[in-house]
């Protein structure tokens, strides 16, 4: 007998259905204790944002876990230095907790800076740093004075808020670099790419589109990031902000302090990628630039459309669940799935706000489940109830999908596939098609039910795949 999958009463307000009346979704709160949230913490938010800055030293001040779990796990690529792919930590021990970790941090910084000669150093605070009374900012100041390097504390104590607060702490640290570099030679047609992390070379793909339009990309923040580029990025005329959650804080700061406007964009899917190019053309003005943008879109879409149309035949009306970190990615995925002929029937995020969820309610088909800060039991329940064919999420969601016989596409930072830009749309289509149309589902017990199992023995298949009706008898 299978127990019904129950939603915790305290979680009910964070779940809605598109097309149904209801107040705003409960969101932006700390997770319910014991709910098994898929979210991480403040530290994670900071680490995710700053990690791809390739020529900086990233040192985690705390016990070993936080550093170990974030060692070289992401697909963020660098065209040069690989320093960021190491894991440096003060590895605090019991005596450090008793006597304080400042001296150890200072020693570690001095040694590591001497050895690796980074362009800057980021020092991430973890949960216990504040509790044991370490003054990380003071240590950073001292090391900075001794080495002449920017040594930047990141206030990322895990429990002091949510992942979003970690984004903010990272933006604050980054902001200390901005405005410290020389801006001579920057074109009047120039932008910064923010919130793209160069997963599988995505920043390079996007940069190339803009360069074809004659737009200079001053800094990619933080994908394939360089300290010197960030120092002078205030010379750009426009900030393009992808992954709205992580970098909007920095963009707003640059707008108020440096007068640089920003646009929220997404580089995922044909529609959003094209819109981003048009948006930039519109911002700088002139029919010539707009024509260049159209030319890029025309060329690129022309290259990929026949292939997408072929996959569309196979994927038509298949159903997808989407659970990702930020809402902008969710919007893009809903649209990209439509391009593939698929319907999104479950969509959720870890960090969306009320406006984001209102947008999702509007853009999704009636009946689509919309959820904030979900957990494995809820996600499984929604996937089963909506009978989805595909799940788009990260590593933590993958086994939920696979165990239930559902195809999967990894759209998180660990992935090694380029999914942004027009070329990314083909890769996305290929991955979705490969998973949804795989022959393996024919053998998965939940899927094999009621299906003829290829040419195999159906008696065996039905024995191996108990239905709710025959479980009790078995």
């Amino acid at each position, binding site marked *: 007998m299978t127990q019904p999958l129950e939603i915790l009463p305290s979680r009910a307000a964070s779940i809605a259905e598109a097309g149904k009346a209801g107040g705003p979704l409960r969101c932006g709160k700390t997770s319910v*204790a014991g709910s*098994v949230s898929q979210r991480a913490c403040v530290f994670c938010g900071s680490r995710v944002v700053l990690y791809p800055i390739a020529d900086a030293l990233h040192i985690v001040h705390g016990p070993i876990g936080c550093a170990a779990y974030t060692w070289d796990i992401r697909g963020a690529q660098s065209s040069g230095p690989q320093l960021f792919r190491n894991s440096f930590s003060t590895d605090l021990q019991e005596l450090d*907790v008793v006597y304080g970790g400042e001296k150890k941090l200072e020693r570690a910084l001095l040694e590591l800076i001497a050895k690796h000669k980074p362009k800057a150093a980021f020092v991430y605070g973890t949960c216990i740093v504040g509790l044991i009374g370490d003054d990380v900012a003071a240590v950073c100041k001292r090391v900075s004075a001794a080495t002449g390097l920017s040594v930047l504390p990141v206030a990322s104590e895990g429990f002091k808020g949510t992942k979003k607060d970690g984004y903010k702490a990272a933006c604050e640290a980054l902001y200390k670099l901005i405005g410290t570099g020389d801006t001579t030679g920057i074109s009047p047609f120039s932008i910064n790419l923010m919130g793209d992390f160069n997963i599988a070379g995505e920043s390079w793909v996007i940069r190339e589109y803009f360069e074809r339009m004659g737009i200079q990309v001053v800094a990619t923040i933080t994908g394939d990031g360089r300290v010197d580029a960030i120092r002078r990025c205030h010379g750009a005329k426009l900030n393009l902000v992808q992954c709205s959650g992580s970098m909007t804080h920095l963009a707003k700061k640059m707008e108020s302090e440096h007068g640089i406007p920003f646009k929220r964009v997404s580089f995922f899917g044909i529609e959003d990628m094209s819109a981003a190019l048009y948006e930039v053309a519109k911002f700088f003005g002139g029919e010539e630039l707009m024509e260049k943008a159209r030319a890029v879109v025309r060329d690129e879409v022309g290259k990929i459309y026949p292939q997408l149309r072929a996959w569309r035949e196979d994927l038509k009306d298949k159903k997808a669940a989407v659970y990702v970190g930020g809402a902008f990615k969710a919007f893009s995925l809903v649209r990209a799935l439509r391009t593939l002929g698929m319907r999104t029937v479950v969509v959720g995020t870890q960090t969306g706000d009320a406006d984001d969820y209102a947008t999702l309610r509007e853009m999704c088909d009636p009946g689509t489940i919309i959820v904030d800060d979900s957990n494995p*039991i809820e996600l499984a329940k929604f996937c089963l109830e909506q009978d989805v064919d595909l799940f788009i999420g990260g590593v933590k969601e993958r086994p939920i999908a696979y165990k239930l016989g559902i195809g999967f596409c990894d759209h998180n930072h660990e992935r090694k596939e380029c999914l942004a830009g027009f070329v990314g749309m083909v890769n996305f289509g290929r991955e979705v098609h490969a998973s949804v149309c795989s022959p393996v589902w024919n053998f998965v017990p939940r899927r094999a039910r009621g299906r003829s199992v290829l040419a195999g023995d159906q008696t065996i298949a039905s024995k191996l795949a108990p239905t709710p009706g025959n479980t009790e008898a078995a």
Partner: protein
Amino acid sequence: MSCSSCKSAVPNPHSAIQDGEHPEFPSGSTNPCKLCTPLGACLAFKGIAGTVPLLHGSQGCATYIRRYLISHFREPIDIASTNFSEDSAVFGGRKNLHTALDNVGRQYRPALIGIATTCLSETMGENMPMLIGEYRKECGERSAECGMTGATAGVVPFASGSETVRSPQTEFRNPELVHVSTPSFKGTHAEGFHAAVRSLVETLAGTQSSGTPSDSLFPETEDPEPEAAGNARLAVFPGMGSPADLRHLRDFCAAWGEEAITLVPDYAETLDGPSWADFERMPKGGTTVDELRALDRATAVLEFGHSLAAASVTAGTHLNKKFGVPLHRLGLPIGVRANDAFCAALETATGREMPARIAAERGRLIDSYVDAHKYLAGKKAVVYGEDDLAAGIAVFLAETGVTPVLVASGERNRRLADAIFAAAPELRDRIEVREGSDFGDIEKRIEELKPDLLIGSSKGYKLARSLGVPLVRCGFPVHDRLGAQRIQLLGYAGTQQLFDRIVNALLEAKQEHSDIGYAYL
């Protein structure tokens, strides 16, 4: 960067670092060769039937650990968190703990919740036994209010009250609560693993069930073999083996006539299970709570780990001291000698001789040693990982002619070198043993040592790649290959698999690096 080297002749490359006030705690780590203690505890708890691990601390700990474990086992691994906020860090985590226990109970209906602390709650000095005691008491009171007495007094929990729902669907038997202290600034994931096993045994062995299971409501938390659990059984504490290793250990003992043994933990199925026909909140399998209770009556206990064998208090010593269960402290059964010791312990425990099937496996292993000995002569290996694993592999390699020139672990318990030399005295003065090591530390030694291969987790890949030598993946984690759950090392047959992989890795390297490219070796 580390570390305590056992071999004084080796120049200490870290003299600059060790000038600090706490020479045994150098200034930091580059590319760690260990994970934090709560991870090990979560892994151990995943081997107990119907158990949900709960971390008392920030949300990130649970999420990072889940992702790390999932990437290795490729199975759903749900770990709950008490989700500290700034308020809980200031005022204490009592409310969060109680809410979390309610919510985990409500969502999962577990048989047991394994509560592990984190650096945050440990630094705050959370009094876990008291907080858990209060929760138990409040659950009891709530049950009494609901008109339940006596045997059913353990039945309706949800102490935090605000969300108490008393429909039959939300009522269930109180889960067992087992707490383990796992500050991440003390020890490694391996030590967290052993601490959790010890807590499980200390908390449950010899106890009686407190309430009547409402088994008609929640059959999935039932003991699958209730009658068998009551009987005296052989207990095996295997350490951090793979699910396939655990299954093989069961078969190994079954060959001795020990059809049902109590493995603690037993994640053979929970972390390497089949595709699901229906959603499973907690995957099937695992040591049951009743089996844990019955450990006081175990016929004998076999506890694996060369290094663990020198620990002052373990799950095994507890059973031995408190209940007089005969204890065999053994190294991980890798190689002929360690497996012979395992078999000797089984002979003592069962009174039966080595079965023919096992003798055949032993014979085949030795035969393959002979077949391969010239391929391996003079080869040098760097071995890294948890101390018990590193020691086990080093002792085995010594049998084959491969010299484990560097054996490195993240632990700092000063047991590794002695553990190796006690089991393989021929290695004394021939190898370097480094505790508190990390990949930055190993990298510094490796250029001089010029190993022919690396043996350990996938985290050594970067080093192996830069050296141009093969990496034989085993242990935890293996994040870049399929089938980490099924890598076998234990038993004669498990050693056989490891041995074949080592020999073939060397043959392949030779073949790849040869200009001629012989297809016949």
